[in-house]
């Protein structure tokens, strides 16, 4: 395998990733308003899954196309000895592909670094304690700001300031802790990292900010619903806790990979209204329904892989690469 053979593979991979991601991103950009409207009619947990899936779809599908179809077709069908020049369109697309990936990786690494520094700061200043019958420890901080947050991407830790603990009743504190535990269960900080890692449409135009905001909003709602646990009294207690914490003043904005109880202060009114007009959630899909939908997903995935492994598909992909490199 020569260097130029590998260089062409790299160029073609980056260029085709950029073009497929751009096309899918443009489709998603057009579909996003409709998807956001649809998500408002769904259960928050389902809506959060849908919006996250849509946000990650362009990058995920583009990666699948490149790694599962285009690169194998190149390796299988491209003669090793061929010395084909690379056209400027392919080079420009590859450069843009490198740029979108570099920017998103830098963004994710910077956010992870900030999150790590924040955790270290918490470790230095907080002490571990057990609150409100919680099984996992909580980090209690002597901070003048009203802090309630979930820090850590893979191993999340609940951080709370004494100011909040003193201001809330035992019941309200339990509701707030349940809310944060819901974020921990659904791995929202890790999902935030995935969103940061997923490249945007163009190097300096991500293009999905509305979708990302809508996801963050329904993820909060889903955590609220988990904390309410289908009980209107708990729902009311959480609403009261939110207002009580808001009264304590503004907390400094947390790092991107940290989930905060009051992160989106503008949404407070909407969240409280939702909790007050609490309607017990419709029954969740049963185990059989979940198994069926999971099975359908696996079957669909297997079909796609089988289709991608067909010689005719690989040949078509190789023809696309030949057209792209000219």
């Amino acid at each position, binding site marked *: 395998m020569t260097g130029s053979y590998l260089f062409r593979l790299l160029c073609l991979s980056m260029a085709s990733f950029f073009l497929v991601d751009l096309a899918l991103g443009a489709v998603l950009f057009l579909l996003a308003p409709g998807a956001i409207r649809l998500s408002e009619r769904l259960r928050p947990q389902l809506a959060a899954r849908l919006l996250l899936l849509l946000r990650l779809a362009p990058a995920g599908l583009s990666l699948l196309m490149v790694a599962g179809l285009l690169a194998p077709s190149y390796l299988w069908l491209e003669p090793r000895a061929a010395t084909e020049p690379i056209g400027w369109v392919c080079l420009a697309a590859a450069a843009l592909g490198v740029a979108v990936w570099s920017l998103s990786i830098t963004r994710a690494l910077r956010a992870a670094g900030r999150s790590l520094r924040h955790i270290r700061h918490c470790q230095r200043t907080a002490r571990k304690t057990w609150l409100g019958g919680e099984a996992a420890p909580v980090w209690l901080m002597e901070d003048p700001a009203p802090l309630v947050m979930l820090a850590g991407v893979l191993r999340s830790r609940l951080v709370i300031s004494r100011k909040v603990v003193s201001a809330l009743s035992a019941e309200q504190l339990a509701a707030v802790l349940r809310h944060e535990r819901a974020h921990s269960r659904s791995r929202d900080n890790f999902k935030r990292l995935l969103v940061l890692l997923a490249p945007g449409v163009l190097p300096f135009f991500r293009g999905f900010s509305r979708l990302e905001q809508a996801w963050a909003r329904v993820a909060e709602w889903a955590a609220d619903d988990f904390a309410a646990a289908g009980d*209107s*009294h708990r729902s*009311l207690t959480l*609403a*009261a806790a939110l*207002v009580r914490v*808001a*009264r304590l003043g503004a907390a400094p904005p947390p790092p991107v990979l940290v989930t905060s109880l009051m992160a989106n202060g503008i949404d*407070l*009114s909407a969240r*409280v*209204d939702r909790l*007050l007009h609490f309607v017990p959630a419709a029954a969740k899909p049963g185990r059989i329904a979940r198994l069926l939908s999971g099975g359908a997903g696996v079957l669909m995935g297997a079909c796609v892989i089988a289709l991608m492994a067909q010689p005719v598909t690989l040949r078509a992909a190789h023809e696309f690469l030949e057209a792209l490199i000219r």
Partner: protein
Amino acid sequence: MRFLKSIPVEQTSPSQPPLGHLEATVMDLLWERGESNVHDVVQRLHRPLAYTTVMTTLDRLFKKGLLDRRKSARAFLYSPRWSRMEWEQKRAGEFVAGFLAGPQPAGELLISCLVDAVGQQDEALLDELEKKIRLKRKELYQRRKP
């Protein structure tokens, strides 16, 4: 921005000509109804005013650069040069710029006033939310009572 909108029109910055009460009413009317002549404006005003008074007011607004006009069948048709939002943004922007261009304490004073106003609005919102929660709690309590 609600705070800025509540500033009386007379307090606008020196670069932006202040509006009198009648001028502000006429501007409101034109923003609402669009292009109108003097007669239309006289008809739509809530208080009876002489034709010449309204004509002079419209002419003054035109000279201040707030209105455009074109001749149609021996009468002028007046229309606002900016939308209401553009005008309010311009006014707020010039007001803030004028304040910040002043000595250091003036700028700090404005920022502190803005923070206070936002804080007061937040307090009002939280009071409102707390009231809703109290009402809902009462409702739940009554529903549970046999």
